[in-house]
């Protein structure tokens, strides 16, 4: 009995120890963002005596993070719905149809996951220039409308859906698209949620590509705004921390919403690879 309590206690001590390291930046971000600018560093261990919400207002209007938020949201909406759409369609074809070059295309698709992003940004920059969309939100959106990872996750899930459903729907005269969107997608909600969240997180946090593709501040997304902010307002830490808190919140909320299916999806990708 005592031994069991001791083991359990030592486990919690270990987990809390690592947990403190993991939580440190979040604690710092939040407490600093609530301090009056002058006291940013005077009492680093204590919560501020009164909350200085002004930092959030300043970040929102001065930086201006309101604008960056709007851009980030527009980009995220298009990328997320685009990736879900292309993934659903392709995954259905890969799971339910036999066709020439199926294996070859599948292998080629999966191998795109190994291409380093830094390699792609140079030619992609030239391509968006030729398409006439450089320095616009379109430059961030269009190259990101598909991902092999989404097709992979979606196909795994589709595979567990019985084919009888397809046959029944076909008997009722449903076309392929009706079948996919009316029957399959509603059943595959967990997979859709996972692919959507990955797309959202990727788009929300993406930095290198927007850094290269955009040069006018009115098109900046939130991560670019933060990086730019450090250069411009280097000493205004409290305002900067308010900005990072607001940048982090949507991602964490999204994660909490679909935590279960996200972790299952991630694990499936890792374990079955």
């Amino acid at each position, binding site marked *: 009995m005592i031994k069991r309590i001791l083991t359990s206690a030592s486990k919690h001590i270990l987990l809390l120890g690592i947990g403190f390291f993991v939580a440190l930046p979040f604690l710092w971000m939040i407490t600093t963002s609530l301090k009056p600018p002058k006291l940013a560093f005077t009492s680093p261990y204590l919560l501020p005596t009164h909350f200085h919400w002004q930092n959030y207002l300043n970040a929102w209007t001065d930086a201006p993070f309101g604008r960056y938020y709007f851009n980030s949201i527009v980009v995220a909406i298009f990328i997320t719905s685009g990736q879900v759409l292309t993934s659903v369609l392709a995954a259905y074809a890969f799971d339910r149809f036999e066709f020439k070059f199926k294996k070859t295309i599948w292998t080629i698709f999966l191998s795109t996951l190994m291409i380093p992003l830094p390699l792609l940004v140079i030619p*992609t920059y030239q391509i968006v220039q030729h398409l006439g969309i450089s320095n616009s939100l379109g430059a961030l959106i269009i190259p990101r409308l598909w991902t092999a990872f989404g097709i992979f996750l979606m196909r795994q899930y589709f595979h567990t859906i019985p084919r009888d459903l397809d046959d029944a729907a076909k008997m009722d005269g449903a076309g392929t698209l009706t079948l996919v969107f009316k029957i399959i997608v509603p059943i595959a909600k967990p997979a859709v949620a996972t692919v959507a969240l990955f797309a959202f997180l990727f788009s929300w946090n993406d930095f*290198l590509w927007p850094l290269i593709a955009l040069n006018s501040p009115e098109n900046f997304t939130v991560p670019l705004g933060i990086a730019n902010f450090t250069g411009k307002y280097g000493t205004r830490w409290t305002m900067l921390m308010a900005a990072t808190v607001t940048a982090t919140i949507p991602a964490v909320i999204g994660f*909490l919403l679909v935590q279960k299916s996200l972790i299952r999806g991630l694990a499936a990708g890792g374990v079955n690879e």
Partner: protein
Amino acid sequence: MRSANTNKAYALIAPAFLLFLVFNAYPLIWSFYISFTSWDGLNSVKQFIGFGNYRMLFGNSEFLISIKVTLIYVFFVTIISTMLGFIIALNLQKIRFSRFYRTLYFSPVVTATVAAGVVWQLIFDPFSGVINKSLSAFNLTGPNWLSDTRFALPAVILVGIWKRIGFAMVVFAAGLAALPTSTYEAAALDGADGVKAIRFITLPLMKPIFLVVIITGIIDSIQVFDHIFVMTIGGPMGSTQVLSMLLYNQGFRLFHLGTASAIGWLILLGILLLGSFQRLLSKKADRND
């Protein structure tokens, strides 16, 4: 009938395939070609120089140091985050508050690395950062972390580990959950439990999972850019200039697009080498089973 189905399948794949052609296949081929030129991105003439960029890189100390820095970064981030992820996953089994811990450890994975980099920069601040302030409470003087060539790389490695633990934990947790309990029961009857069971049952069975976590860790961390850009911009004196940072500087600051493309291709070759190594290892593991 069959050809109708084939056409349907092609139509369903078409959107993804077109995007693949324009934004993956073509860029890959194009940058391969550019890596053999001295193009500056502006001139309409792309001067072909054969292996010039590659030869120049391997004779260039900045590049060689960058490779060394990248390998150190990849090695420590991958090994330490994998080990911590495994230890956490082991200890999270059958424990109270596991959901709380899991959410906490996973939060860095979803946090924008740029935002995290800015906060860590504040934490590492030599005068007002929490680390040096804590040290000074013990009458110790902390180093000037991010502007000291000895400490900048360990500092950005720490952030890389922080960011990755949660991912490793999740994959290991799923792997552990899939292990057959009967094996442990049989082993416990033979007197193998606790540390022994981990050593002789869990570790061997988890080998393929370790391989996945390590390989994905290497592929991810070999491309690291975001938090290094925010925290050190590759400095001081190149001590944190990983390959993608060098690629960025060459391609988008100096407009040496040929050289930058060559660096990109060398990163890809490294990943491909690793991929074939993985296939070899997993084949060997299959044969041993």
